[in-house]
């Protein structure tokens, strides 16, 4: 029970302090709109909204979670308020899960903004909703944990931003959202399968258009594996660096 109260307290504070601030809400709305408009402008033929949905959703989650978490944790670490959390009588696992839950929730909500918009413009009757929700959740968790790993590897807020971009942009171009993986140059193709977003994007393609290339079970297993790996490596780094 004590753990639940602490978990809820941390989540509630982060939501109010960071994720529900007007700049972040407007980011959540403007970002998917901007991406969709970009595809409209660049396309010479009529744009299939449904085909855009997996890409826009994945980008909304990725950009909404990684830098937010990396920046907020680094910011609290710099101000030493993070020490207050480390000194609380709750396990490090629960603490970091509470700290990342806000970003996961924020990322997942961001992902559904384009879905709500698309519902007015396209027929979404063929979407496999359970798969979409699972995909969004797992992509949000893995992206958030990537942000956590970045946060525990840097000291300054600007470093967190730089590192986020260092990981995000190659991931966006290699994960199969813009170019099919089998059309990537040979040496880059194995690299694509080392990225969690590759499996998330494939799962989203499958859920929205039934055009996934890998079996759903493989995508799910890979995403769960990445989530666990990123979380455990982050915890290990925290124990090594912050509780020395």
């Amino acid at each position, binding site marked *: 029970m004590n753990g639940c*109260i602490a978990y809820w307290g941390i989540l509630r504070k982060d939501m109010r302090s960071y994720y529900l601030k007007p700049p972040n809400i407007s980011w959540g709305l403007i970002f998917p709109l901007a991406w969709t408009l970009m595809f409209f402008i660049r396309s010479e033929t009529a744009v299939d909204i449904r085909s855009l949905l997996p890409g826009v959703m994945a980008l909304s989650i990725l950009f909404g979670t990684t830098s937010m978490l990396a920046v907020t944790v680094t910011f609290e670490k710099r101000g030493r*308020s993070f020490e*207050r959390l480390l000194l609380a009588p709750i396990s490090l696992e629960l603490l970091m899960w509470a700290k990342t839950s806000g970003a996961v929730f924020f990322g997942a909500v961001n992902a559904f903004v384009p879905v709500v918009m698309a519902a007015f413009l396209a027929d979404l009757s063929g979407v496999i909703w359970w798969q979409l929700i699972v995909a969004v959740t797992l992509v949000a968790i893995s992206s958030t944990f990537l942000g956590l790993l970045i946060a525990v590897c840097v000291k300054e807020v600007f470093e967190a931003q730089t590192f986020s971009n260092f990981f995000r942009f190659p991931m966006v171009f290699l994960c199969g959202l813009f170019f099919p993986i089998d059309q990537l140059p040979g040496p880059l193709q194995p690299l694509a399968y080392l990225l969690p977003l590759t499996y998330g994007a494939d799962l989203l393609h499958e859920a929205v258009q039934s055009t996934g290339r890998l079996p759903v079970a493989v995508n799910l297993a890979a995403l769960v594996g990445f989530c666990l790996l990123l979380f455990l490596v982050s915890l290990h780094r925290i124990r090594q660096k912050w509780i020395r």
Partner: protein
Amino acid sequence: MLRQNDGNEMSDTRVAAIAAHQLTKCFHAVRAVDGVSFEVRDGEVFGFLGPNGAGKTTTINMLTGLARPTSGSLRILGHDVTRNIKKAQHWMGIVPDESNLYPELDGWENLCFCASLYGIRRREREARARELLEQFGLASVARRRFAAYSKGMKRKLTIAAGIIHRPRILFLDEPTTGIDVASAREIRQRLAGLNQSGTTIFLTTHYIEEAERLCHRIAFLVDGRLVRVDTLANLVQAVQDKHTVELSASGGLRRMRDPLRNAFPAGDFEELSETRMRVHTDRPLPLAPLIRLLEEHEIQVTEARLIRPSLEDVFLEITGLELARMKNDDNRPETKSM
């Protein structure tokens, strides 16, 4: 070498609030804390003093769970927490040397949030936050953002956050550094009140006067090593054998150094200015011949004052001697560490 004296003010039958045995912390080749052993009794105010870089904060970090000891053992309220301190953190309140609450939250929200970290239910945490804001005189600024608080207010709220869950042991790292005299005095009064209500306090401070006023026992840490743990009375007794008289005169004291030394070879004459001088001796100093000598040189003594040895003298003597001894040890080829 550590000299430890238990004093006789407190009962020995109580379980130690903190029992550290041979605590050591190394950062690569540097031994920040070197085999520190001490006990803090339940209900006492224990002062932890030492020069900058002595290892005070590292020790506090090990005691509270922000650092893992390289070796040694630690018991909190009788429980061995050397490997897992989480279970003891519920009994601890920690007030760091910087006010580290959340700048974007107001005073009320900060306290309620800190209470939630200790699993306190909503009704209770709100009642406790209200009570503490009243106690610390912050009720009128409860809804002001922490970032907009003055330094003194920030310090008070940080202490309030540290005791929101009614800890049995309160760790305070430099609680009054950088705040005005009135706020510092108010904080000291609150801390004394907390201790009277049964809270054990572990205090590090740079203000000797603060330690003198608040602490039952004091430990001196020098270069990562604990060199002395004792009651205030016993510590001061150690320098009681030295007699110091401060003389104030009309002027010209500097030119009197040699005549005074020649006339009183047992005295150590320390000129503070043209008009002030301190005389240190191992035995009570007869003042009449000294004043007469000065008057013969046309210097009027306006005041002669006996200087009572303070904790500051003890601090300077202990840390100074210990640092000199360590320096000597380091210079000896056979003991030089690599």
